[in-house]
């Protein structure tokens, strides 16, 4: 489902196996519990998270086949992904998505919920497929889109043409930070970036709080961050 590796100060979370890594309740629980493990690790406030995947897909989105057999599961998947994204936003360490395969719909939202998006340019695309497959776009997805894509034209292209965004196009549109020739190179670059960030030092707890204020609108939409600015997210033991 999901593996965790520690490389020096870097946590590498990998969506394992050759499948589509559809965000069904089981995988979402697995990712979330891995994030909890990372959060409670001793060194967590001086670390970096890298999220990547095996195979052709980063994640192809929610498990729609499952949702069709049981509509209440679609609500459950949405609730679980919201919590996961809120967790990522409050995580007391920088986060890097090493996108080594297709990221569609909810899978694309997951990738974009990281601070840095590094992506392979030889294959794969970011794809908000909803217009093409007539899927409802939750309002909180749009909060992520607005938070992470600055240009109105780029948002329009992503949402209203269901563009299949390659890494290079993603860099142009300001969605992807940098593009690499292969999956291996992308992960290597993520590791290098992670190590650079660790070297800069700094307190992950402060970083996490800053990131929460930056993405306040997303937190409001995912977990109902309250108006006083205090978050419903667990106390990270911050000194602030």
């Amino acid at each position: 489902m999901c593996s965790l590796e520690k490389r020096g100060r870097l946590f590498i979370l990998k969506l394992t196996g050759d499948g589509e890594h559809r965000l069904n309740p089981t995988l979402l629980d697995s990712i979330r519990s891995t994030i909890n493990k990372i959060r409670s690790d001793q060194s967590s406030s001086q670390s970096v998270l890298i999220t990547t995947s095996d195979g052709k897909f980063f994640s192809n989105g929610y498990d729609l086949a499952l949702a069709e057999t049981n509509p209440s599961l679609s609500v459950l998947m949405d609730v679980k992904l919201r919590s996961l994204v809120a967790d990522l936003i409050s995580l007391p360490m920088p986060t890097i998505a090493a996108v080594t395969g297709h990221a569609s719909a909810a899978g694309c939202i997951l990738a974009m919920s990281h601070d840095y998006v590094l992506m392979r340019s030889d294959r794969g695309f970011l794809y908000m497929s909803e217009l093409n497959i007539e899927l409802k776009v939750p309002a909180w997805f749009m909060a992520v889109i607005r938070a992470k894509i600055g240009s109105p034209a780029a948002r329009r292209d992503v949402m209203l043409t269901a563009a299949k965004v390659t890494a290079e196009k993603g860099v142009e549109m300001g969605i992807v930070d940098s593009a690499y020739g292969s999956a291996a190179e992308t992960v290597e670059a993520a590791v290098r970036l992670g190590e650079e960030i660790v070297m800069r030092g700094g307190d992950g707890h402060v970083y996490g709080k800053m990131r929460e204020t930056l993405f306040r609108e997303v937190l409001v939409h995912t977990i109902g961050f309250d108006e006083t600015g205090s978050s419903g997210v667990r106390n990270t033991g911050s000194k602030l």
Partner: protein
Amino acid sequence: MCTLEKRGDLFLLTLTGDGEHRFHPDTIATILSLLDQAKSQSKRGSVLITTGHGKFFSNGFDLAWAQTAGSKTGAANRLHQMVESFKPVVAALLDLPMPTIAALNGHAAAAGLILALSHDYVFMRKDRGVLYMSEVDIGLSMPEYFSALVRAKIGTSAARRELLLSGKKIRGEEAVGLGIVDAAGYDSAESVVEATVRLGEKLAAKKWSGEVYASIRKSLYPELCGILGVEARVFATPKL
């Protein structure tokens, strides 16, 4: 003053005649009824292209008509009437169940520019025609929904400043650079229209559901929708 034609999948809305295509309450009512017609005839693959004849796309509200009210209060009331009655035009375009493209044959000023910006895509000429928000020059206050539309469609603070605060007459190339229009590489009114027809045909070929398209479009502009009272509608067979 204004016609609606069907060309295959494409609806062509034209502001006719050689004048300034100023918006008088009657013009506004006509535009609204033609948009309503397009909406009622819409099907998968429909696209709207709006253009004009002559030197002007539109030079904005009919201020001369406002002046003939005979008193300052009378003029202010007439202007207010036009501002209020134009809101449904912007709302109708936001809500239209098909992609929309503005093909600027000439100058677009004030409410005329707002009409253009209410479309999903805006193409203009390179050789002729300017974009001009004249309000700062003629001492007119900016309706709230005008500013909200500018904020929704134009991303950078510099571009918003150039458009709203500088009283600048912005030509094609600069408009593309500022991210106000999508393309301006055209040397005649005919070639702008041709380019929009080509884009229109590409979009039409996708055969998107108009209801889904409009729903996603509205979710891109929540602030504007709020001000215009445009509701995001849940569509008939929501998946997930």
